[in-house]
């Protein structure tokens, strides 16, 4: 079960990430990269529905998240207008101009809102998932080192995480992004700095707890390498709470990316991005008539975050019931 899940996730995440980060290098045929991801998303969704049958909350969350995943991987194949090409400015949703239908209207510069929304979710998903994953790798690694190895390692890791935890999150993001410059990769670093300490604490606690367990001591007696013990024996047993935390963290990271882009510190234009759409909508179109420019991206990002939150809530509910 585990390896199937891992393969599915890799089939979705790797092509999508490669597509978003290296699109210019891949050229016109880059969209073929996404083909294996499309059936993977559908399979993932079916699996999620089956395992979370008892919690309609988790199923709803899975639906929302998989919907956006599907949008992200099929974006090049959908019959959408060019998201960056200015056509007719300020068309209200459902309007037809020059024979072109703008289902969700067009923004201030004339770009189609629907296509920008669909293409925008690629960036949010890729950077959000990547950043969270890196934070997990770093945080879990640090936690395992500190919890299992103890001694000086533990002191050092704990102190470093305390330093990072002493900042309010936004302050940390602003400092890191101002120092390193604004780009997607630096957002990963910023998110890692803010999330890894918390993850480290969780994993460290679990590692400390598990260290005294029998199966660990058995492995030690067997003479297994500490790294092997950490990864193979320890980690799988702490899966449950980590998945719940991961979903919540994905939600927070998505909010952070959107907010940072809004402040001008995050992903840079010109490609479509929900935070950017909200920002452009906010400066130019504060009229009720044009508020669709803000409502559409706001609803999109909210639904994605809602999806993550619902999955987390549903899983917690299910684990409580057991």
């Amino acid at each position, binding site marked *: 079960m585990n390896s199937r899940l891992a393969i599915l996730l890799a089939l979705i995440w790797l092509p999508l990430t490669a597509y978003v980060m290296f699109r210019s290098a891949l050229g016109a045929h880059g969209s073929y990269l996404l083909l294996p991801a499309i059936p993977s998303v559908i399979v993932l969704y079916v699996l999620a529905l089956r395992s979370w049958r008892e919690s309609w909350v988790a199923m709803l969350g899975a639906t929302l998240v998989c919907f956006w995943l599907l949008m992200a991987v099929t974006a090049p194949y959908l019959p959408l207008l060019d998201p960056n090409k200015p056509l007719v400015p300020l068309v209200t949703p459902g309007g037809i101009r020059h024979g072109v239908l703008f289902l969700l209207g067009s923004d201030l510069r004339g770009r189609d809102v629907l296509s920008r929304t669909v293409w925008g979710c690629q960036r949010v998903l890729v950077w959000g998932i990547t950043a969270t994953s890196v934070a997990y790798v770093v945080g879990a690694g640090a936690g395992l080192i500190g919890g299992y190895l103890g001694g000086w390692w533990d002191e050092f890791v704990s102190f470093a995480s305390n330093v990072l935890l002493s900042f309010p999150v936004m302050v940390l993001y602003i400092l890191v992004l101002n120092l390193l410059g604004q780009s997607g990769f630096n957002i990963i670093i910023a998110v890692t700095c803010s999330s890894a300490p918390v993850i480290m604490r969780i994993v460290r606690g679990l590692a400390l707890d598990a260290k005294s367990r029998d199966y660990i001591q058995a492995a030690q007696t067997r003479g297994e390498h500490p790294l092997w013990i950490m990864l193979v024996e320890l980690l799988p047993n702490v899966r449950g709470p980590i998945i719940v935390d991961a979903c919540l963290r994905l939600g927070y990271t998505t909010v952070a990316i959107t907010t940072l882009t809004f402040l001008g510190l995050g992903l840079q234009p*010109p490609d479509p991005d929900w935070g950017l759409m909200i920002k452009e909508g906010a400066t130019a179109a504060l009229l009720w008539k044009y508020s669709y420019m803000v409502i559409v991206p706001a609803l999109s990002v909210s639904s994605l975050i809602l999806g993550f939150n619902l999955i987390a809530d549903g899983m917690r509910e299910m684990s409580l019931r057991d």
Partner: protein
Amino acid sequence: MNEHSLLPRLRDQLNAGLMDRREFVRFAALLGVAAGSAYAMAGLSAPVMAGNTLPFPAAEPGAKRGGKLRIGEMVARMDDPATYNWNEMANQTRPMLEYLTMVGADNVVRPMLIESWSPTPDLKTWTLQVRGGVMWHNGEELTAEQVAWNIRRWSDPALGSSNLGLSTFAALTEPTGEKDSKGKPVRRPLKNGVEVLDRRTLRLNLAKPVLSVAEDCGEFCTLVVHPSFKAPLSRNPIGTGPYTLAELRVSDRCILKRVAKTTDGKDFHYWGGEVFLDEIHFYHYEQENQTAALASGSVDAIYELPVEQIELARSIPGARILSVETAQTLCCRMQVDVKPFNDIRVRRAVVKAADNAAIKRLVFGEHGLVAANFHVAPVHPEYFPLPPVARDVAGAKQLLREAGYPNGIDLDIVVGNNDGPWQQAACEALRDQVKEAGINLAVTVVPATKFWEIWTKVPFGATSWAHRPLGTMALAQAYRGGASWNESHFSDPEFDQALSDAEATLDVAARKAKMQKVEKILQDAAVVIQPMWRPVFILAAAKVHGYNAHPARQMQLNKVWIS
């Protein structure tokens, strides 16, 4: 006062139809003819001015005294007027300190603290007459010695004032012959550059002929301070204007109150006639928030209305949108000494693949004017209309093939949005256009502060150039070989010679002909893609009167009143 010797020639040209009336007024004013007389000579009715020598528009009938004007603009520090780098700093200071001359919204220069000016025919010696009866806030009267002190200060290279980029003050310096560590020649002030003749007369002895002395004295950094000035200005502002500083909190508010008494107890008498507002309040609002603030009634007028917010502005009941065409533009300039732009075929290909008119339409709609890549605007008096650059995608592809890029080329343009997001919109439009010629242009947006660190270093960058009253001014600062703001590293001795030639010519027909040569060289060299001249919009509530849009965004508030 004696008529200037060159005036009959100007009149002849006007009569022969070689110059239009508006240009005549400009040039006559530059020569020191009072604006009213110049308009009269041209057979035009002058905009009604309050008296022949006052630079302000006449007060509207029904103008009421009293009240306070709340303006939404970014509130900046006020340290040293000679080193101001934000327009907002000058706007806050302008009601308190004044200029020697004032460039109006119609681009005509009028006397302010200088009553009249007259050059010799070779345009190297200028005699300036200081206005009498101008009172400082400390009770003293303005003298020529004080004006001379200011001018000497502006032309001192050690101060680092951007005024040195203006021809007049650059012509008051000379090279010492040494070079500094950056390789730039070191300059020092001319020994007898500024000469005080008597209490109200001074003379400028310039190293080269300069046409634009009067206009240079109205640039935003040339505010006249009292010789007792010590930075920062905000601690003790002594000026000649009708207002003084009551409170300054940077990024928060700047409060100005009308001056009633001088610091030694006398009544303050303002030379410029009646002033209506009791107080002027500047409240700090970021650029994108100003319109919303006006919509909520928190302010009565704002610094600038960005073109993206025009819809929002239109929905505010009673608010007036005012606009003016300017010589402000976007220069997408290529560095001619860096690969691949060192090959003129590549540059020409990029220029040919662009469609300037389409970019203007996309960004500014029906406002603004189309430009043709030679950085002289229709609002400039010496503008020579060259034929527009026609879009030619096939030709662009051909040129690229010849230059060795048969499969197209990848380029990167850096834009800092230092004047607003419209710059990015223009670059993105350019990107879409040149794609058809096989040029993959990546638009890199950097924050404005970052942009200023790298603007002279990037091979392909998009800089916004501010409005200048004369066409030669921007050319001298940006394209003359070795100029400090020459971001494209363009260096053509023929161009430099032709430009100097044009700068020294008063005769309009000959000047225009000379400008034709200058413009053609620059256009053919394909150094810059300059799609449009942008318009400037401002917004004011219905109760504000006399508040006009100025092409250089200078707020002139002396005759504004509130109903």
